[in-house]
């Protein structure tokens, strides 16, 4: 039931954040005031249906502009959402996360990669280099930097914006070249990887997931494990698509809050909560004979 509820929220969020239907008909994008605001998940603002702005695209746009070096507005927005929800956004509110999950449902041999695999740190490197350093320092004569992550990496942009706009727009079709082919190649790689590995983009590439992950240990939305009930059977780790040892690290930066561990726990030791309060653990009673 919880799994079904999450899927409904994911689909509804994808529809609401990409609800500008004329865009898909005309091959154009929404140009209204809602685009002042960032959506919580990674959703390209050049998707024909996008009603809001992508936080990572916006961050690069402000950093790469001639006027600013840093974006208080976008970083503040990400920090606010991160403090409230952490990577709950990835598991429940991100359209590209939903796409990867649907691809992973395609029947095939699945590859499990440990949550301790050092490849998880690559997303922090991408955040630092492609989202912050390059747009800030590699600038043209006007002092403007490119959004390097969007330009050279982001497969969500290729899928949600690049392909639909190029199909529907003859002038854009004429302008495509090597970078478009490179981005389509990365998209195909992401699609193939998603069939075999759970959420490969979220785990190894996504700079937004990297930021939200840092908030997981302190966000208001959190997982809690009762040490009284936990029998350390490791079922949570086996059920977790990212192989997190939930009973040891319930608020790991890698956890996308899918909640599968909650349903899998045979003793109901794992629960989620939202708020400032920490669950108080009662010390185990010691039997004295």
């Amino acid at each position, binding site marked *: 039931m919880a799994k079904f509820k999450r899927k409904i929220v994911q689909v509804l969020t994808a529809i609401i954040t990409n609800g500008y239907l004329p865009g898909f008909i005309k091959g154009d*994008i929404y140009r209204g005031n809602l685009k*002042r605001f960032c959506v919580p998940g990674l959703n390209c603002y*050049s998707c024909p249906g996008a009603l809001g702005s992508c936080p990572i695209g916006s961050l690069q*746009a402000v950093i790469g502009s001639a006027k600013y070096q840093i974006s208080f507005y976008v970083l*503040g927005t990400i920090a*606010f959402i991160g403090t409230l929800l952490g990577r709950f956004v990835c598991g429940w509110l991100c359209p590209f996360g939903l796409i990867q999950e649907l691809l992973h449902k395609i029947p095939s041999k699945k590859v499990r990669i440990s949550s301790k695999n050092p490849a998880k740190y690559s997303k922090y490197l991408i955040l630092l280099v492609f989202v912050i350093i390059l747009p800030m320092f590699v600038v043209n004569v006007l002092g403007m930097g490119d959004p390097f992550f969007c*330009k050279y990496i982001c497969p969500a942009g290729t899928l949600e914006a690049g392909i639909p706009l190029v199909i529907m727009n003859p002038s854009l079709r004429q302008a495509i070249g090597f970078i478009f082919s490179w981005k389509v190649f990365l998209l195909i790689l992401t699609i193939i990887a998603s069939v075999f590995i759970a959420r490969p983009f979220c785990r190894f590439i996504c700079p937004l997931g990297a930021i939200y992950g840092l908030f997981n240990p302190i966000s208001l939305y959190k997982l809690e494990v009762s040490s009284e009930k936990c029998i350390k059977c490791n079922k949570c780790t086996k059920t977790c698509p990212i192989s997190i040892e939930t009973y040891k690290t319930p608020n790991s930066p890698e956890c996308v809050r899918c909640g599968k561990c909650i349903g899998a726990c045979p003793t109901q030791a794992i629960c989620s909560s939202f708020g400032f309060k920490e669950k108080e653990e009662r010390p185990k009673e010691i039997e004295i004979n």
Partner: protein
Amino acid sequence: MKKGLRWILLIASIGSILIGVYREEVLTVLVKAINICLECVGIG
């Protein structure tokens, strides 16, 4: 400890958003978002 940190982060993030609005960063976001981002598409 964590409770205090959460409050600090919430207040700091709201403050940061307000500073960004005051500095008119929102306009930069809006201008970028209402024009087709050629880099996102894979052309720019």
